[in-house]
């Protein structure tokens, strides 16, 4: 309940406050969002499987975002930023799909 509320409040804050994203951060924002989504899907699956742990969630969320941004940052410095971004997105998207499939099985028994 608190989790859903937090998500709604966060989206509302982001939409209404229009946080100014610093220029140096802008290339990493989309990747960070995908990484965060991956953490959220993982958390939902864990909740449905009854093994949710908020400490694990917070750590996985923060580390996911930081590592994804770091990989893209390193890629940018090495001149392969777009390729590494693609790689990160592919891996994270696969995980999201896998978790979503698991959530679907839990919810609908399919």
């Amino acid at each position, binding site marked *: 309940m608190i*989790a859903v509320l937090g998500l709604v409040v966060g989206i509302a804050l982001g939409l209404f406050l229009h946080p100014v994203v610093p220029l140096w951060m802008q290339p990493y*924002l989309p990747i960070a969002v995908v990484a965060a989504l991956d953490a959220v899907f*993982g958390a939902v699956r864990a909740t449905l499987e*009854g093994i*949710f742990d908020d400490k694990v*969630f917070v750590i996985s969320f923060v580390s996911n975002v930081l590592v994804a941004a770091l990989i893209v940052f390193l890629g940018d410095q090495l001149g392969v930023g777009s390729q590494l971004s693609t790689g990160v997105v592919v891996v994270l998207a*696969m995980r999201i799909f*896998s978790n979503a499939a698991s959530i679907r099985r839990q919810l609908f028994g399919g």
Partner: protein
Amino acid sequence: MPTDAPPRSRVDGVPQLLAQIWDEALDPGYAAAAARKQREDPAARRRTRTLGAGLSLALVGILLAAAVVQANAARPAVAQRRVDLLARIQAQTQRYDTVTTAAAALQVEVDRLKSVALGATGQGKLLDGQLGTLELAAAQRPVTGPGLRITLDDAVAPGSGSQGDPSLGRVLDRDLQMVVNGLWAAGAEAVSVNDQRLTSLSAIRSAGDAILVDYRPLTRPYVVEAIGDPRTIEADFAAGAAGRGLRTLQQTYGVRYSVDAASALTLAAAATTGLRYARPVSRQQDPAQQEVTP
């Protein structure tokens, strides 16, 4: 290779890696934490301490919204810049027009005063006449007379031609140059393009997709007007290289053009003033002799 082998047992690496990503989609930390809790305190297994999760999800929401807002904000910014540039171009063009009009009005005033001053003496009258002839040739005076009007326009549907490239059906600066040169060659005494009088210093060139005459962009259709001998100019133009070139453009690329004889054309004076750096060789020195002995 045995077909019943499970994909993850393959050793060529990549499928194994993908299978691993797929299987370990859930952070292994969850299972580890659950096992640890079960060991320590089986009763508190479903204990929900979700404040940290709530805060994290709020952060996720902010990230999500910020990213969406950012992605949407970047698009109008590009469009906005384009609109700003267009507005600036239009404003500067308008300014150019007003300044040119003012310059033309002042030129008329200068001409009038010059005539008055020169008309005072007999020699002055003679000079005034000479000046008039010279100014006609230098495109510094409006002129009127019979001549030719050539209208050029892009192909009807660019790209529908056999070539398929939309840029092929467009009138280029080269085409206009060819037409203007053809008119001069056919004996034109004064030429203007879209009411811009051409002088000996005029340039027809392109910048991007636009054709510029003396740095002023033209809009289609392109109307080239020339004053010349009405009996010969049309035939001479059609027989010359420019006339042939125009027919080729029409047949090959679908460029539209029409050539009409006009009994009375009026061409405005050119906006450019006289020469700024070139000086006539002084009368006392014989120019031919000067060339021989530097």
